[in-house]
């Protein structure tokens, strides 16, 4: 399967040139750029690990691309890496764009567990198959 979180998961995987255009867009909007990674891609896992601090006051996408490249060297292939743009203006103070910039080659997907309860109601649990293994070890071959 292919996890379709983020802004551009239905497009072919972005190359570095593509990623740079979107990072530059964030910078042009005055947003801080943040790089995060995880090997627990549960849809409600809000807090991915931060690759350093969000990058405020960056002028050129090149600086972000260096950090992204370093993150990818450390975690590429065994984690999802997402890039997000954060807008600190009043009324937003929130993420304005977020997209997956790197993903593991093999994405096993999610198991859905149905717990039958009273009446015909079912309680659903979704968990990544990869989460069976300990953190850090989940997407190793």
């Amino acid at each position, binding site marked *: 399967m292919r996890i379709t979180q983020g802004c*551009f998961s239905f497009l072919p995987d972005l190359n570095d040139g593509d990623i740079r255009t979107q990072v530059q867009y964030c910078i042009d909007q005055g947003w801080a750029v943040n790089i995060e990674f995880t090997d627990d891609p549960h849809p409600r896992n809000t807090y991915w690990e931060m690759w350093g601090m969000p990058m405020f006051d960056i002028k050129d996408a090149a600086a972000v691309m260096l950090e992204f490249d370093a993150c990818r060297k450390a975690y590429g292939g065994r984690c999802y890496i997402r890039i997000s743009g954060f807008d600190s203006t009043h009324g937003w103070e929130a993420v304005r764009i977020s997209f997956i910039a790197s993903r593991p080659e093999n994405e096993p997907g999610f198991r*859905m567990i149905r717990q039958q309860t009273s009446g015909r109601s079912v309680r659903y649990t979704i968990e990544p198959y990869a989460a069976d293994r300990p953190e850090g070890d989940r997407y190793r071959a």
Partner: protein
Amino acid sequence: MNIQKPPPAEKRGRYSAGVLKYRDMGYWEPDYRPKDTDLIAVFRVTPQDGVDPVEASAAVAGESSTATWTVVWTDRLTACEKYRAKCYRIDEVPNAPGSYFAYIAYDLDLFEPGSIANLAASIIGNVFGFKPLKALRLEDMRLPVAYVKTFQGPATGIVVERERLDKFGRPLLGATVKPKLGLSGRNYGRVVYEALKGGLDFTKDDENINSQPFMHWRDRFLYCMEAVNKAEAATGEVKGTYLNVTAATMEDMYERADFAKELGSCIVMIDLVVGYTAIQSMAKWARRNDMILHLHRAGHSTYTRQKTHGVSFRVIAKWMRLAGVDHIHAGTVVGKLEGDPNTTRGYYDICRQDHNALCLEHGLFFEQDWASLNRLMPVASGGIHAGQMHQLLDLLGEDVVLQFGGGTIGHPMGIAAGATANRVALEAMVFARNAGRDIVREGPEILEKAARQCLPLKQALDTWGEVTFDYASTDTPDFVPTTTAAE
């Protein structure tokens, strides 16, 4: 014993018994300067032939505040000057002889805090049936901050909705399940599953899907939630389906909403026809229960569409932002339903800005400060398809739910393919815009390129690429921007 005949009107005092002109009773005050705390309404007044526009407008002020048809001495038991609405400005409507824009100021004390029902009963109560008027339309309203702050506002708001859904930087995608009547719960859930798995964020019950012989509401909720969860597992994304909890009584609505919550739904929906009080009740319920509240504006065109009489949708949008819904259908511009581009832009600004500037060409008669009230997500639905993606993104922006019902379910290769086509078109267009492309001009080319790697999009473009709904709008702005000479 003598019964005295009342003196002629011009000789009488303000409070002598008898009938007095509204303009002479204090409802026309051309020198009045509205206070910051006044609520101001602008009406389009069309008096009967021979009726003086000033008297007609003063009558609107009177009948929507303290007046009755004759003088009453009991006025003198009140601070009646304060409670009288005051018409202070009358303009001719451009290009519409016989119609006038009347600006009327109302003191804040005339309204119960936090009650749309009270506001509506005052401003659009008896006055709309007043005989000396041919027609009357409430065009817009300036709500003082002091009044705005008495309302909860959208239960969730655009920012928190996006955070809960973990979806940023692009419009959300939805589809209404079709056919809207007749599907069993089991078949209905199939449509939901296919559409969500294919790439949509939301599916939606239609306005008249409640609990009918072919599908009981509990059945629909159960099958829909199976579909939502299965689609989440298939994609790793948060998904939702607007479960319509509209019902005959408030008790029934709460029962349905509680069941939706128990099943883990992130969103429920109601129809505008449930009424303002029920809407406010559901908004409070939604906030208490961490639920997004979708509003389908069923019925609004009966009173919003014609320009001469009724209530403009911009007023309804303002009331709904106060009332506290999170989503509201606000037009598509390019789709099958009524919607002039400039007028629609005005509605979207009402939903999404913290501060509206006065903008007559978009139908906004007043500056409006929303005082950090949550923002309301507009929904574009009705006759739109993937081939219009560049126009939709350009006209409606990013914070909007684009709902392709027929444009998803009618796809030649099936529902999931229809959903994928829409999602790919959307992501390609957002990517291109961010990368600096001129999407309005290059849109068709961007879509065509994306379709080379996505067969469902190619098929969607082949099927609907040429479909347009090009009819004149009825509800257009009365003001056009002055053109400046090109350099």
